[in-house]
């Protein structure tokens, strides 16, 4: 899993039938120090995250696993909202 910040929302009327009804969020990957790392991407939101929240997400085929309707063309899914990051 990787950390990211939700920076926006995507609207798409025409999409894979099994992605219908799912919210898709734009996320900016970040490191644990909250600095941006890499390019933004789009992830399916399975937990109801909002813009500005820190989340963690899974990529590749594993992104399909949390979805209720399968198969679906998802290669990134938000699976948790971060409450706190503690670094030693």
């Amino acid at each position, binding site marked *: 899993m990787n950390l990211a910040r939700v*920076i*926006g*929302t*995507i*609207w*798409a*009327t*025409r*999409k*894979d039938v*099994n*992605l219908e009804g799912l919210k*898709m969020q*734009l996320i900016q990957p970040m490191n644990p120090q909250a600095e941006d790392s890499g*390019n*933004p*991407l*789009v*992830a399916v939101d399975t937990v109801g995250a909002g*813009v*500005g929240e820190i989340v963690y997400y899974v*990529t*590749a*085929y594993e*992104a*399909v696993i949390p979805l209720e309707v*399968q*198969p*679906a*063309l*998802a*290669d*990134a899914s938000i699976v948790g909202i971060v409450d706190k990051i503690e670094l030693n």
Partner: protein
Amino acid sequence: MLLGKVVGQVWATRKDEKLTGMKLLVVRHINLDYSFRNSYVVAVDSVGAGSGEYVLVTTGSSARQSALTEGKPVDAVISAIIDTLDVEKQ
């Protein structure tokens, strides 16, 4: 999924027989302000995308997770046509 713009189409007569009938589009990756990035991908079209449209591209083994592409030698597929991007001001 990555953001892209359809900039062309690929035609191929000789190909894996499981790819027969699939439309292959050239998609150039874009930034959040719709400017081009320097990378491309050839993706199977599963939603009826046309030239010039902004799309989402699903890659890797996830690209086989649809009725159209299941079991096919495909690693990139257009999974949605973007209507709008709502991006927070940074």
